[in-house]
């Protein structure tokens, strides 16, 4: 059973709102142009916002699980039930980075690096899938790089919104 007892109900609900907005933006801004990775813009931004506002060890992961479950319930994207992984892997990267380097939220460079790492998990998703279907190894690398390049670009762009947002929220005493 997945349970987050240490989070207050208020914090859990805020993470729920972040999760639902990840899904809402995914529905609203689907660009049917085959531009890979654009959804990382708001996914990474909202996961970072969740982690920045709720300083619990697994807040981003919890948000990722909730958004993946919502995407599952609403039948979004390809991958069926495995769509949850698309949200959880970047979230895990964000939580892991916060554990290792808690101050990264304060700087643009730090948050961009973490966003790049989180977005790059798409590389590993693609590698695993392509390995399973038996693609040529060099092609796996190229395919995964193509998929991940867009994700990293958009993920880093989305992350740059977050430091000023968190600074203002802190100065207002909200977090």
């Amino acid at each position: 059973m997945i349970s987050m007892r240490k989070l207050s109900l208020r914090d859990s609900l805020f993470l729920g709102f972040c999760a639902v907005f990840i899904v809402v933006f995914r529905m609203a801004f689907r660009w049917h142009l085959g531009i890979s990775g654009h959804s990382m813009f708001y996914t990474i931004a909202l996961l970072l916002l969740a982690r920045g506002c709720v300083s619990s060890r697994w807040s981003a992961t919890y948000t990722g699980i909730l958004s993946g479950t919502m995407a599952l319930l609403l039948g979004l994207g390809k991958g069926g039930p495995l769509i949850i992984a698309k949200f959880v892997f970047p979230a895990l990267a964000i939580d892991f980075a916060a554990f290792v380097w808690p101050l990264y939220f304060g700087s643009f460079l730090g948050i961009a690096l973490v966003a790049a790492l989180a977005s790059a998990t798409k590389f590993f998703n693609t590698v695993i899938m392509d390995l399973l279907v038996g693609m040529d190894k060099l092609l796996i690398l190229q395919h995964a790089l193509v998929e991940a390049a867009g994700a990293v670009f958009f993920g880093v762009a989305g992350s740059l919104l977050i430091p000023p947002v968190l600074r203002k929220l802190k100065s207002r005493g909200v977090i």
Partner: protein
Amino acid sequence: MAPLLDIKDFSYAWPGETDWTCQRVNLEVNAGECCCLTGSTGSGKSTLALALKDMLPSGRREGKILFSSPTVKVGLVLQNPETQLFATTVGEEVAFALENQGVSPELMPEIVRDSLLSVGLDKDFNTPVATFSMGQKYRVLLASVLVMQPDLLILDEPAAQLDSSGLAELRVVLASLVKQGTAVLLCEHRPQVFSGLINRQWTMSGEKLSQYCSLGMSSFGQVDSPVQGHSENSLDSEEVVRVEGASAGTLVDQPLWCDASFALKAGQRVLIQGANGSGKSTLLRLLTGLIKPLKGQITVLGQQPSRKQLSGHLSFMLQNPQRQLFEERVVDEVSFSLRRKGISKSEREARSISVLHQCGIADLAERSPHKLSYGQKHLVTLASVIVGNPRILLLDDPFAGLDERFRQAVWKTMLNWSDEIKTTVIWTSHHDDEVPAAVDVLLTIEGGKIASSK
């Protein structure tokens, strides 16, 4: 017989706060009594309500809250119904507390049925809550608390969201509950709407809790000396708004209101009255150009309303206006719209300070708007939307949640702007018992129509 509730010298301060929010509160409530707690915003009524439900975080506290028995149950309905309705259907909603208590599903329908009947709602369990009026939704909320069989029922600002028909329904339900022996405690700015029901009333103000036996009427609308509406000759004849045969809503075959026609002049004070959900806010949004009418024609300042055209000429203040605050200083918040117009810094500050003076809050200029009281935030937001001297000022329920002091401050500012700057001030209200004499045009939305009277 011991009182059901006995509060002795109770004081509480929120964590991190140095000042007491409630101070030395002493009161008693007996079973089968309806009592009322009034007081200005920030006087501690809601905090006391949360204390009675044992839901306050561990701040500083003194004194005691005693119940006649350890098994006394307290039910609480908070101010905003929209954030308390969790389910889609009536049955699920009322059963929420039973689910939380681990009540067996087989027992739930009977308990839910009884609770719904006690509030006069005999509806199928699968009826969607979204189809209810605000008054019915409030009664669903009441039912969802009554399933917990409280001995003391606390209602926080019940009149804030309800129109006259909703209030009438609520009065009947409360009378019935009191007759059955439930104690009711109302935390309410406007106790006069429950006159005839209230046995005792207290007023919380600063350090004092005073008990009153009679209920005074609000002096709303009276600023020093009574203000009347403008005479026809005293107003500039320039027409600023014309609405012809307009209909509004989301569905063409089910408009909120239709065939509305009226014209408004510069400097007029216009009140839009109607029940909750009748389309008052929709009318304001049509005038801003944010939404389009389903049918008919709307002209604002001689053209079809659009954001570009109205920018700088029309200002809009939301209900719960503190949502739009974002700067670090009050003076920056107020001068924001001037900054975007390219006005110099010295002129911006001068105009902002002048507006703050007129609103009576010049002493707050350097403070953070986010650390002010509810009423102060309200005035800051009002100042920020009038600083540009708009030709039309739209206010969505500007007095909601304000106590008498801040209501008068907002009202005075509205009068000044319509008299001195010739701003057409248009505001909405769902309370049909308050039509100040200073109103020039009253637009009443009822039965899907808008009636205009002067």
